[in-house]
């Protein structure tokens, strides 16, 4: 049957509400008896709390309560319980909360927050992850190693700042390097950056005298948040109700938990009141979650013909003051740092370190851009060393059917067509000849390929409920969070396809409420179309089965003989039909007698067979699906100003099936520009005193329209993938993964300079060009 809805660029179902300002975000919500919260932040990166004087603040107009961490024994987490909701006896980063003022208005809370006086004994601090991991570094957590944790997955080194050491050992890399004719190696840095969704984080929490609590939050992980809060306050999860409205961008920075435990802790002191906190932009930088923060080195060995023999890498992550959201990033960086290539021998060590900086969490594609920056830059260097093109090296080593990745997983054809992606990018770039350098401009071209796995909890699943109404319309509910990526639209497309009814009859509500919405692990790892789509197929399949059973009873025949098409059951002989609407509440005869079950079903999907990586080898079936792609660009460097203009950026991903080609393109164009920001602009800087300093726009520069590439080409390949719903695969984070190495490879081509540290700003370029001329 030809597809009616899947594969069509239908308009987004949420677009009208967002164009009119109707769409509701957490900051737009006002509850009865609502207090506003303002947070007092440490302001120093590391110190013992000597005293906190709240008396002046408490006496100020409108102030209801000032909450500190004094006496708080709670630690929250999902796999590593190392963080209190606000600082208790010491502060571990400058943005850490030390007190929360609750007042009637925001202005009153802000004024009172300034009146809170905290005294500290300053402690030596460390920001650099390599220094943090070294002996003698200031110890940030004395209890590292003894915190409650999931022991199979999180591997701390007690007595150090290393709270997680992930190691990957495939084959014997020493032997692999002995077999190599040539090696390349380098040191790289991917600095701490902000996901910078335009909507700042917010939460509203209310405790009731009956022992239950409710929270409204800008959060990608409502069920994780629910379980964390239930654990923290030792109340049943059934008494914690989480509501999620629209999210104004997430990019991972709103996944797991961030500010919610703080808001909930403060709200627990004023039961009956709702407590609302919306972060300032500055706090988004200093006190929510940030991303990346990697320093690493990598070495690749190859034969003369370009065949890889071995890879060795070390990565150190400045994961900030607490580690629960950082450790999976570290593990994934290790899994994926090889890029989409086969290496027979791999040795990788990743160290997640406590540092006196903001907490690192997920950021679009987490772990992948950090690790693959290194491999993709080194491949470019290796190509020149061997007198080959980077494309030739890539083609020689691409993961393809039957080859084995670093985790030991055997690649299937359905994982995707890397040569096809690379060819598409080369073709797009070759359409315009590379201009010749002139007095003003240098021109260059760069290329890289990528892979991305969805790192997930092994038990991660999506569930979907479908309810058919008497008019034949249907509710489709999942708990995939709509944060811009367009899940509501593809959910409706897929449900309409599965039920064979018009899209106008399907409604998928964006608001998630853990009391009523079906359970979902969380909206991360680009899994909603893929995993959610399979859950939709399951639920809709059940609906059709129930309808056919009821129709068979009406017609007194076997259900297997009843056909289903276009939203109707069809009689095997007469062609008579019974619509879904007619069967929605069972079939009712003229006298009212009703038979058959109502048309409601719950479907689910879990990527099968996922395990946590083996603690010794780091290998195993730890990633359920792969998406491959290639990207390349042509750029221009202004010799006078050092400014970079990207003339053309081309991307090709094997997405299995583009469920909505227009929104898929939007994911790519947006991801490329976000990645460009990382490559050329973005880095959180610290003062000599260890305090983040460029913590607002434009001091922290993210791309504007005029920074964006002049032209983008997006090619979506569709290799059949029997595991995906209508063949679809994850693809939303992927466009960011290879962008930085593509740009740095092109800068190498243009300038002859090997850049290895992000971001490559105009000043960096001018300095490098000057140094080159001086030689």
């Amino acid at each position, binding site marked *: 049957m030809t597809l009616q809805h899947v594969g069509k660029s239908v308009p987004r179902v949420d677009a*009208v509400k967002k*164009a*009119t300002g109707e769409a*509701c975000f957490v900051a737009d919500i006002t509850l009865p008896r609502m207090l506003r919260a303002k947070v007092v932040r440490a302001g120093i990166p590391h110190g013992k709390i000597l005293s906190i004087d709240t008396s002046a603040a408490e006496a100020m107009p409108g102030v209801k309560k000032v909450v500190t961490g004094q006496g708080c024994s709670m630690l929250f987490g999902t796999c590593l319980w190392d963080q209190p909701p606000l600082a208790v006896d010491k502060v571990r980063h400058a943005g850490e909360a030390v007190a929360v003022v609750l007042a009637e208005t925001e*202005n009153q809370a802000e004024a009172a927050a300034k009146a809170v006086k905290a005294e500290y004994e300053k402690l030596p601090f460390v920001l650099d992850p390599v220094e943090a991991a070294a002996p003698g570094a200031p110890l940030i957590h004395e209890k590292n190693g003894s915190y409650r944790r999931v022991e199979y997955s999180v591997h701390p080194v007690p007595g150090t700042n290393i709270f997680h050491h992930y190691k990957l050992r495939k084959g014997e890399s020493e032997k692999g390097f002995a077999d190599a004719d040539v090696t390349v190696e380098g040191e790289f840095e991917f600095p701490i950056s902000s996901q910078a969704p335009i*909507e*700042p984080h917010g939460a509203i929490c209310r405790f009731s005298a009956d022992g239950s609590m409710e929270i409204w939050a800008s959060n990608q992980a409502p069920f994780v948040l629910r379980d964390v809060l239930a654990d923290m306050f030792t109340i049943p999860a059934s008494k914690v109700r989480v509501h999620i409205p629209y999210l104004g961008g997430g990019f991972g920075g709103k996944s797991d938990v961030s500010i919610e435990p703080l808001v909930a802790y403060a709200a627990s002191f004023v039961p009956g009141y709702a407590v609302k906190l919306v972060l300032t932009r500055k706090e988004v930088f200093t006190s929510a979650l940030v991303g990346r923060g990697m320093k690493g080195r990598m070495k690749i060995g190859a034969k003369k013909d370009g065949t890889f023999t071995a890879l060795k890498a070390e990565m150190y992550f400045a994961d900030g003051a607490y580690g629960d959201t950082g450790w999976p990033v570290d593990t994934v960086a290790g899994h994926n740092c090889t890029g989409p290539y086969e290496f027979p021998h791999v040795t990788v060590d990743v160290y997640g370190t406590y540092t006196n900086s903001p907490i690192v969490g997920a950021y679009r594609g987490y772990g992948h851009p950090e690790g693959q920056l290194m491999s993709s830059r080194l491949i470019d260097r290796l190509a020149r060393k061997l007198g080959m093109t980077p494309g030739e090296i890539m083609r020689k080593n691409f993961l393809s059917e039957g080859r084995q990745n670093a985790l030991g997983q055997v690649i299937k054809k359905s994982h995707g067509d890397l040569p096809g992606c690379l060819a598409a990018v080369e073709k797009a770039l070759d359409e315009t000849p590379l201009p010749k350098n002139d007095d003003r401009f240098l021109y260059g071209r760069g290329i890289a390929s990528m892979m991305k796995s969805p790192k997930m909890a092994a038990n991660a699943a999506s569930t979907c409920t479908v309810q058919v109404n008497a008019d034949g319309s249907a509710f489709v509910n999942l708990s995939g969070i709509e944060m811009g990526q367009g899940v509501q639209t593809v959910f409706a497309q897929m449900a309409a396809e599965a039920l064979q009814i018009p899209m106008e009859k399907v409604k998928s509500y964006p608001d998630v409420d853990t009391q009523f919405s079906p359970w979902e692990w969380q909206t991360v790892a680009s899994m909603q179309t893929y995993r959610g789509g399979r859950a939709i197929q399951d639920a809709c399949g059940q609906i059709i089965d129930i309808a056919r059973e009821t129709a068979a009873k009406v017609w007194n025949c076997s259900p297997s003989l009843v056909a289903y098409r276009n939203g109707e059951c069809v009689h095997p002989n007469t062609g008579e039909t019974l619509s879904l609407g007619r069967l929605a509440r069972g079939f009712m005869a003229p006298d009212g007698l009703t038979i058959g079950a109502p048309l409601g079903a719950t479907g689910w999907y879990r990527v099968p067979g996922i395990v946590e990586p083996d603690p010794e080898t780091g290998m195993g079936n730890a990633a359920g699906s792969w998406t491959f792609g290639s990207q390349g660009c042509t750029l221009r460097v202004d010799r006078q100003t050092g400014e970079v203009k990207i003339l053309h950026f081309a991307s090709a991903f094997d997405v299995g099936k583009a469920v909505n080609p227009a929104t898929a393109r*939007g994911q790519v*164009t947006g991801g490329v520009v976000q990645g460009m920001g990382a490559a050329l602009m973005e880095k959180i800087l610290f003062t000599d005193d260890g305090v983040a300093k460029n913590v607002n726009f434009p001091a922290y520069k993210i791309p504007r329209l005029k920074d964006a590439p002049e032209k983008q080409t997006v090619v979506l390949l569709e290799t059949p993938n029997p595991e995906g719903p209508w063949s679809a695969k994850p693809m939303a984070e992927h466009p960011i993964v290879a962008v930085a190495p593509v740009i740095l490879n092109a800068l190498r081509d243009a300038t002859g300079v090997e850049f290895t540290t992000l971001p490559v700003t105009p000043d960096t370029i001018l300095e490098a060009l000057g140094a080159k001329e001086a030689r």
Partner: protein
Amino acid sequence: MPVLNFTVNGVPRTVHLEEGRVMLSSVLRDSLGLTGTKVGCGTGQCGSCTVVLNGRAVTSCTTPAEKCEGADVLTIEALAEGGVLHPIQQAFVDAGAIQCGFCTPGLIMRLYALLTVNPDATDDILAEEINKHLCRCTGYEAILAAARLARERMKK
């Protein structure tokens, strides 16, 4: 308590202002419940809070409320009065220029201020205006396309 008298979306309003620093964005959102205007940075850099003040696009998060005495303010809520989208709004929907939607109302209001006065604004002028806004989702390609589409439709 200071009082502000001004006109919002054609309706005369009187609002009592809290002591201290009160911005237009907060009056619109907190006092008048017009939450279509978004606040993304509080420093006029992201453009999400853009409204039209006396015919000009301003960032309402940096516009002191007391400076709005007697002013005429238009917010995103004024554009689809009666449930029919303004051509700029419809262009954003049709061009696929909306992802998370947080920056959308501000962009639409800035283009409204521009295109109602200068329906022949060049591509360069459109780009200049969009460049005053931050969008983290789309990569801007579709936003520029929406602005061109809106310009074309508003001429008809």
